[in-house]
């Protein structure tokens, strides 16, 4: 019996120790909200987008506490903001250019007063007035990264191709992959139509016909597809595991594979492709709008932050002077011949409702076919 008491004792004290350890580990999380009465800025963004050294320095310089909520995709940010309604818990979100209009339509983003940003001029000239972030003459975000829908192939197993037609070749049956909604736009373009619906404003029947044509083409070639994917990490892993040889993928995830030394080539075929921008956007009714502006201005001040984002995401930075900070390999992964870059057309912000409706419908039909 006394033996048992001892064991109980040890167990109890061990449990106490465990509990205390847990408590200590969790303490910062539990206590933090309590003393966070001072100035704060809340950011929802991707892992490692904002370097820790920068956050530390910023907090020291300004006395504003930076709180980062990590996200992994656009849809979740949108759903979270929508669910929060008029009382958001976030000040800054990270939105891709072609999603901006969706956020704005739901009244989730505030116009950006670029006059309040001293360092606005530090953006690379091509992005200062980027049309994807400009809606009805107002700017809605600070551009961070630029990417495009690329043709990606494994150079060990495939021949070079200057056309999207490689995605439909018999040779690569069951060895291709794409994001349906993105590749539908590209297929429309490949078939000679306007995949971004910019010219279809008052011609819904023409748009529907073009959408159906591309949809039927993709259904006809469904046997070429190994998998429809959603996230960049999926297409990366499929390439690494040699589950696929050819794919449509965003330039960022592909560039990361190249940076890591995999036999991967990223290109823009002759039919052209679409590009997009990631941006930091101030949320409508942001609880700490002033701090958000201070933060955005500070971010623009340093090309190091642009470089950190490029390293993490593989996308090209929209900040001026980032090339000088990146090393040779990182730079090489992001640079395409000028002739190919000319073929990138940025997703527009007009006629989004028609585009989204038709593409979503066709996407469901392709999946169900």
């Amino acid at each position, binding site marked *: 019996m006394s033996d048992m008491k001892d064991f109980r004792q040890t167990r109890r004290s061990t449990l106490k120790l465990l509990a205390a350890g847990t408590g*200590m580990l969790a303490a910062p999380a539990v206590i933090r909200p309590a003393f966070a009465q001072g100035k704060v800025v809340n950011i929802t963004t991707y892992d490692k987008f904002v370097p820790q050294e920068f956050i530390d320095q910023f907090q020291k310089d300004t006395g504003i506490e930076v709180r980062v*909520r990590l996200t992994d995709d656009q849809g979740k940010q949108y759903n979270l903001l929508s669910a929060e309604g008029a009382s958001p818990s976030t000040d800054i979100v990270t939105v891709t250019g072609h999603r901006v209009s969706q956020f704005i339509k739901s009244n989730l983003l505030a116009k950006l007063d670029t006059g309040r940003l001293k360092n606005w001029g530090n953006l690379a000239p091509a992005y200062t007035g980027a049309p994807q972030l400009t809606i009805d003459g107002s700017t809605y975000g600070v551009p961070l990264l630029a990417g495009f829908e690329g043709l990606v192939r494994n150079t060990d197993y495939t021949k070079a191709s200057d056309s999207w037609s490689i995605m439909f070749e018999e040779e690569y049956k069951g060895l291709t992959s794409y994001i349906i909604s993105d590749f539908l736009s590209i297929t429309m373009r490949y078939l000679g139509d306007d995949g971004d619906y910019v010219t279809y404003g008052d011609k819904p029947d023409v748009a529907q016909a073009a959408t159906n044509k591309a949809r039927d083409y993709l259904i006809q070639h469904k046997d070429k597809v190994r998998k429809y994917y959603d996230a960049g990490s999926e297409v990366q892993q499929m390439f690494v595991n040699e589950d696929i040889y050819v794919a449509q993928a965003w330039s960022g995830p592909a560039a990361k594979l190249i940076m890591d030394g995999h036999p991967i080539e990223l290109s823009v075929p002759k039919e052209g492709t679409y590009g997009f921008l990631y941006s930091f956007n101030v949320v409508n009714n942001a609880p700490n709008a002033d701090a958000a502006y201070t933060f955005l201005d500070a971010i623009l001040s340093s090309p190091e932050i642009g470089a950190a984002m490029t390293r993490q995401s593989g996308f090209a930075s929209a900040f001026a002077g980032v090339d000088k900070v990146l090393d040779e390999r990182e730079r090489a992964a992001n640079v395409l011949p000028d002739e190919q870059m000319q073929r990138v057309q940025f997703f527009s912000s007009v006629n989004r409702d028609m585009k989204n409706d038709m593409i979503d419908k066709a996407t469901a039909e392709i999946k169900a076919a």
Partner: protein
Amino acid sequence: MRHYFSDAPKTALQASYWVFVIYLLLPLTLMTAMSFKDANFIAFPIGDWTLGWYAKVVQDKQFLEASGYSIFIALMTTIFATIMGVWIALLISAEGIWGRAAIFALACLPAVVPGLINAISMRIFIRVLDIPTGTGAIILGHTVHAVPFVVIMVLTRLRSMPNNLIDAARDLGADSFIAFIRITIPFLAPALVGGMIFCVLTSIDDFVRTFFLGGYQPTLPMLIFAKVQGGMSPEINAMATLVLIVTAAVGLYAEHFTRRSRT
């Protein structure tokens, strides 16, 4: 001990157990092996081996904080969900309660709703109630999700509980509360342990609810999801391996303790 079966079925059962263990462990062994890979993506062959990812992970303050935070939330969730789950199960199993089938269906509701829907509806709901997001909201969300698992586990066991056990205790002078503590709870113990395991697991593994209900402190799955977004790196495997080692150690310690205390 008697053999219930002749040797052939027994061997078959034993084989099925070990095949199942291999099924569970083999993929994880690969995952652990990948955590030693000296590259930014996981793949065969492993090529160069390194301990660098572990060095990085054990010094990663964010990882340690996230782990602690996850454990804290899981413990709180388990406590609340177990209490509420047992309570609901008692209600459902009580004689003469009207509409037990409906209560049971409603009690199971949160387990059926896909995580994303559950998370969004919960987020809208707590906004309506004016509950702030953060640790409390996460625990609430996890608890609601975990309760059905406890209810189902406990109900299964409760149904086979002989009524005369409680009656006997009453005859011996115990009031119903004491009878509950001394008779019902010990009888439910295996189901409770099972239910608690489900609570901890669903809580510690949850990502969507935490994202919608949480504040600015990441839990472990949130951190891992965010990291996967930047590519499946061996660093993530190293984190998972450490989690497994710690869990196994705690499990073995508990087992060791119960074994010693029994003898």
